[in-house]
Every structure is written in structure tokens, then in C-alpha cells.
């Protein structure tokens, strides 16, 4: 399994580099905005950084899922790997673990930074203890849901469908978060979407001709 994960990371290193880059940019902007404000609490501009983070997570990970499957199909990677001592299930799990790692590379430093900034510069209004964890869990699930959609679209169609799929999902998810917030129903809907999408991808990937 480690070899398969390593292969996936090496093949999709661009996504990891992009995650590091975006994470670094967002951290730099957040820290800079917080220090340059009146120090009465987190700047609304810093909080607004959540929006580009969501967009990067949604589009970036949908593209990652689609590219993993698209490259697999066109370069017949699974076709080779399946003749070696690995199962198709292991190939898919390695792929998903790689995406989760890439998401953590993007979100974990941001979450840690946000938690530290909130501790150093507590806001004037009260916030509950799991505020940051809930926000970043929801963003993670959103990115993961889009990734699952990307896996499905990349395995069955060309380049246009994954892009359209990501757009549709963004259109649905952003209002959903605005209306419902980051926790509660949003998480349930995202988990259901992830479950359905992964089940379909698993069924398709393990039964199709390679």
C-alpha cells in the first residue's frame, strides 16, 4: 500500500505543491491582515479568506480526482498495476489516501494558524470552543465530496464534464453553507454525498474492464 501511495503522490506532486503554496499564501495574508488591523479581534477581511479557501478546496480537489482517474484511463496505469500483486480496491484506496493527504496539506496549517490567531487576538464576541474545528471539518468534507465527484467524472468522461460537475457542486454547496452554516445539516448532506459517490466509484472501478 505504501508503494501505491508513494506512486500517487509522485504522479500528482503538482497538487501537493499547489496546496502548500495556497496554504502559505492564505496564512501570510491572514497573519498580515490580523496584525495590521486594530487588534480588537480577527479582521473581517481575514475571515473572508474562508471563501477563497473553499473555492480552492472545491475546484482543486475535484480537478485532482478527475485527473487521477483520467490519467489512469489514458495511460492504462491500473491495467498494469492490476497484473501485479495488488487489488483494484488497494489502488483506489491509495488514490483516496493521497487526496486526503493533499487536503490536509492545504487545510491543517490554515486551521492551526486560525486557532493560534484566535487565541492571540480573541474576538470581542464570544465564540464556542470547536469553532475552528467545525469550519475546517466542513471545508474538508466539501473538498472531499468534490474530490469524490471528480473521481467519478474523470473515470467516465472527458475534460468538460469534471469542470461542469465542480461548477454545479459549487453552486449548490456555497448557498447551502450560507443558509445552513458550517455544521449540522451541511455535514450530514456532505457525508451522504461522499458515501454515495464513493460507493458508485468503488463499484465502477472494481468491476469495469481495464
Amino acid at each position, binding site marked *: 500500500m505504501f508503494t501505491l501511495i508513494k506512486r500517487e503522490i509522485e504522479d500528482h506532486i503538482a497538487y501537493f505543491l499547489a496546496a502548500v503554496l495556497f496554504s502559505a499564501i492564505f496564512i501570510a495574508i491572514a497573519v498580515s491582515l490580523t496584525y495590521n488591523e486594530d487588534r480588537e479581534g480577527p479582521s473581517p477581511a481575514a475571515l473572508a479568506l474562508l471563501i477563497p479557501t473553499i473555492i480552492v478546496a472545491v475546484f482543486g480537489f475535484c480537478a485532482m480526482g478527475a485527473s487521477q482517474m483520467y490519467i489512469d484511463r489514458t495511460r492504462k496505469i491500473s*491495467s498494469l498495476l492490476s497484473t501485479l*500483486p*495488488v487489488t483494484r480496491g488497494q489502488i483506489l484506496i491509495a488514490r483516496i489516501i493521497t487526496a486526503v493527504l493533499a487536503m490536509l496539506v492545504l487545510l491543517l496549517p490554515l486551521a492551526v494558524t486560525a486557532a493560534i490567531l484566535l487565541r492571540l487576538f480573541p474576538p470581542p464576541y464570544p465564540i464556542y470552543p470547536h469553532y475552528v474545528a467545525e469550519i475546517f471539518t466542513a471545508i474538508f468534507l466539501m473538498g472531499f465530496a468534490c474530490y469524490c465527484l471528480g473521481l467519478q467524472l474523470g473515470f467516465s468522461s472527458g475534460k468538460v464534464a469534471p469542470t461542469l460537475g465542480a461548477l454545479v457542486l459549487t453552486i449548490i454547496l456555497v448557498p447551502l453553507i450560507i443558509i445552513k452554516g458550517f455544521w449540522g445539516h451541511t455535514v450530514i448532506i456532505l457525508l451522504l454525498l461522499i458515501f454515495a459517490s464513493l460507493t458508485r466509484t468503488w463499484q465502477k472501478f472494481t*468491476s469495469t474492464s481495464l
Partner: protein
Amino acid sequence: MSDTVIKIENLVKFFDGRCVLDSINLNVPQGCIYGLLGRNGTGKTTIIRILLGLDSPTRGQTYLLGTQSQKLTPKLRGRIGYVAEAHNLIQNYSLARLVKLCKDLSLKWNDKFFNHLIETFRLPMHRRVRELSIGMRAQLNLSLAMAIDPELLILDDPTLGLDTVARRQFLELAVDLLQKDGRTILFSSHILSDVERIADRIGVLVGGKLVVDCPLEELKKRIRKFRLIFPESAPTDLHLTEIINQQIQARELTITVANWNAQKQALLETFKPASCTEIPMSLEDIFIECTNPNPAPITDSNQEM
């Protein structure tokens, strides 16, 4: 382990409503070199892909090393070497990276043998797979398949793209491998002289059906071709069964018959031909005769039809 390494039971495969494989039954015992022959598009690669679990059958079952193809575990896959017809290697990888990947994923890896093969084939490890010629890709694929010291080697037209010297090297390697106890090879090829040189059992696919499945020597004994010259015009119907091919030119009749036996010989003699000459047949001649549209089935003597 079961004595039957490859088992196919009543295999049927449809592609877009077209029957590609029609009720194929096949058993390959341990230690056998089985040559699977057939013209392009007769289903050789499909059989191999279904055996490896890369494709699913429409009906029927296939087994490798005693396990159903769709349920092959990684441990069992580690005992099977495979060379694909199109050499499905990851094109943008360097040879070194591809070899490392295969080595890391394999359960067993014979470094010494692999390095020997790489030196024999003079493969440049620093180059990318896509920069290699078809022949070099075939050599690399073969080296990767052989390095795991497989119990069962499945080769789908492995010598395609190889020059004469490399082909000879490959055949010697295959023979070397077989000399190790109990190794089995299934291979399909268009180069019949290669098959004739190493195979000890032959299967011929025609129109999705396995019309020949018997040991090579027996095949040569059972398919006979005669040139008969009659005093007057040649009879149009000899009342013989299992005629593979028949050509009449005035007094001359050329006939190819499957499952030749004394009864058929006696029946032929009742027509009192002026002369009867047997024409020796190579595997290539037999293949050409068998791949005509309606050949008679030729099976093992112990599964007489």
C-alpha cells in the same frame, strides 16, 4: 496446488451484441507450454484478459492456479507473470522508476536474473518508456514478467516487434523458465515457427470457437492432407466426415481431413484412386487449413468428438 493451472469452463463473451467467444472450454496442466493461435480478432487477447480478471465474462468461469479469475488475491497474482500485447507500461515513467515500482509491488524479485536480462537486451534504464521502440518495450515487459520468477507465465503475442535475435533470446528464456519445476506458460502468437519450437499443446481459435485443442505432435498426426488422382473425374463427395478443406481440379482431388484413422482410409480406398500421395504439413499449413471458415473440431484423443 491443483494440477490444472488454467481452467476455462463454457466461456462466452459478447462485445456490443457480437459473440467474440463462444463456449470455450480449456484445461492447461501444470508444466505445459500452451500455444494459443488464431487470426486477428478471434478472441485470444480477450481470453487472456478474462483469465487475468481484467475483463469479465458474459457467461462461464475461468480459473487460474485453482482460483476464480475475478477473485485472484494479490498473493496469487504474485505468482503470475504477464506480458500484454500492447505492452501496457506507464509511458511517462523512466525505466528505472517503472522497474522500482514493479519491484516494490512484487512478492518475489530475482535481481540477478533481471539485471542479466536488462544487460542481454541492452535496455537503457535512464530513458522513459515512451522513448523506447516497440521491440524494447516488449523486452522490458518480458524482463519484468520473468523477474518475479512466475509459476505461470501468460504471454500475449510477446514476440511482436522483436527482431529475429531477440525472438530467439526470448524463446531460450521461455525454455529456461520451463526447465524449473512445474512452470506453465500460456502464450499467443502469430509467429507459428515460434509456437512450433516451444509449445507442447496447441489451441486454435476460429470465429470465437476453440476448434483445435490437443498436443502439437498429436495435431500433426491427426490432420492429414492427401493428393488423390482418379482414373476419371474426381468424385465430389467422398462421404468422409471432418473434412477441413477440399479442392477438386478435374481428376485431381486435394483433401485435408481431421482425426484421420483407419476407417477413413478404408473409405477413401473404396473410390479406387489411381494414386494417393500424402502432403507433409507444417504447423503453419495446419493453421491455415484450420482457420478456414468451417473447420472440423480437432480435440484431444481422450476427449474424442
